[in-house]
């Protein structure tokens, strides 16, 4: 169900209708995003500059579910006249999702080079780590520890000061 906007090489002036960029996710869904919002992504910005934004831009690393949310994020952050506090609250709500989705956001933000989203999501993960013991970190992130008992003991001894 793709609808590609008519390609326009002229820069959009304020009186012109907003230029929409079409993006295609890895699972074939198409999303439209305003150019102003798309500029939040350095990757997309480069593509727009090089005038490759005519047909839907394929994003093979991002699924439809995540791309929809990323588009929402960028659109929100491109909105004029939103005060910092409500934007922060909106951001907090945006990342209040299950773990797998947070990591999907990180990967998408990394791929699309969206600094705001990347900072936000990395901070979320850092918050998840902060204050946890190694066991808790393992359990929370489902990380398998491949230390032998001796290695583990040694590592603990090295870092014992962190456990006081």
């Amino acid at each position, binding site marked *: 169900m793709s609808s590609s906007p008519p390609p326009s090489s002229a820069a959009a002036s304020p009186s012109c209708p907003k230029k929409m960029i079409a993006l295609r996710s890895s699972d074939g869904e198409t999303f439209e995003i305003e150019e102003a919002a798309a500029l939040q992504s350095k990757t997309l910005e480069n593509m727009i500059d090089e005038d490759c934004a005519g047909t839907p831009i394929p994003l093979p690393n991002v699924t439809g579910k995540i791309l929809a949310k990323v588009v929402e994020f960028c659109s929100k952050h491109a909105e004029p006249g939103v005060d910092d506090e409500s934007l922060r609250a909106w951001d907090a709500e945006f990342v209040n999702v299950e773990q797998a989705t947070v990591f999907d956001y*990180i990967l998408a933000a990394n791929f699309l080079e969206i600094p705001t989203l990347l900072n936000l999501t990395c901070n979320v*993960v850092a918050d998840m780590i902060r204050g946890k013991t*190694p066991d808790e970190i393992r359990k929370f992130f489902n990380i*398998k*520890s491949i230390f032998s008992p001796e290695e583990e003991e040694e590592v603990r001894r090295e870092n*014992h000061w962190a456990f006081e």
Partner: protein
Amino acid sequence: MGKRRRKKTSAAPPHPRWPPLPPPPPGASFRLSLNRTDELRSPDPAASLQSLGLASGDLVYFSLAPDALASPQAGDGSSSAESSAGASGGVPLGHAEMDSEDPPGGRPREVAESEMVDSVPDDAPGADASGSAGDPGNSVSASFDFEGDGVVAADDSAGVRSKFSEPCFLKRVLREELGGDGGDHRLLVIAVHAVLLESGFVAVDPVTGVPAHRFHLSDQWPSTAFMMTLQYSLPELVAKTQGRNVSESVVLKFVSLGHFISVYGRLAKANLALRRVCLDERRFAPIIDEMWAKGDDDVEGNEDGGSLNSSSEKEVFEFWKIVKDGLALPLLIDLTERAGLPLPSCFTCLPMELKLRIFELLPGIDLARVGCVSSDLQYLASNNDLWKQKYVEEFGERTESGEMINWKQIFTLEAKKKRKRESSRCQMPAYTSRVRRLLNPLGFPGVLGGDYDRLPGLGVHPPFGLPFHRYQFRRNIIHNCNLGGLNG
């Protein structure tokens, strides 16, 4: 009341209060029962239902299969078939509202005729309870009818279920049924199943190990203690084995206690950690029911509230998060690791530079802890530049600089110094785990907990341990005696 319902077949001695029964009329088109086990028979086909001992509000089962109720059942069907409306767990049958159906003679036959035909007489273990799915206009068994693994009361007797009236009455009754205990169980089980499907699992038949596109929901959902098992695997694994037993799968067990359902999950063939999630029926079942009740129309498009308000949506998101983070994601990671498949989105699968980026946001102490998590993270967290940054953040710039400085060590020294300064200011005793650990290698006292934790010198002979009453401030103990390299 109960006695009458346990009335046996004609082979049993006649009940003292009832007249002896003649042989059943040949070609009887249906069998009535109150507990799906024992049939109610009347000498007179035209007798009223009341004469059979049925009362207002009783739940009545009937079947068109002549031998459906021949043998008594070993399950707990009889115990749950007690009287009034909705008491037996969520069986998708219509109520026989006896008062509204005061039968003139022969009414039961009329009802039988109006009933939908697919009675299911087969007793095969895979008994297709799809009869229940034949309810018109009601996919309550939604698109999932689960097949219990035998733990749930066996419903191997013929599919005895009834529809007594028009679809709208049925719908109302089903709605009532779903409001009862059995309904809540069903809703939560289906909802958890949905989360697993969304995470990428496919359902697998527990008996044969082949993918199951539809589970068969047992009709019997006892209102009290309840347990059932489901099995899942991944599409890649299923494809590999081409319809035979999948090599690896995940088993989910639902256990209900009161109004909580605990869901346990683990790999079927490995002894890894058991994952557990506990769900409060009272909190989530109404919300899920609301979602189900909305039907197909516009489930997604309720941004502005609509009929599904935002607090309900929030609860659904909460539910999803709890089940996904506590159950689906850990199990998915376990399964993919074991099967050698690519991991789902998780911390481990982030590229190195992103992990480092996250570590940059951590204070030094958390960075040290992260380094204890696994050997990969130990390597990452020992990055020198990273520790230099941490040092500068916490202790300011350092005048000396050179290529070979081990910034982590320097940070560690500074941190210890800082802590010593702080601890000398306050003499609060604080338990430290180090001491306990060092006691264990000595082999004694080898006891955890209680006084041995509170006072680690307890029971250990000098010079390693110290008598109890003299050393209540363990910080002093640490400073004053050598416990084998602690301060080294």
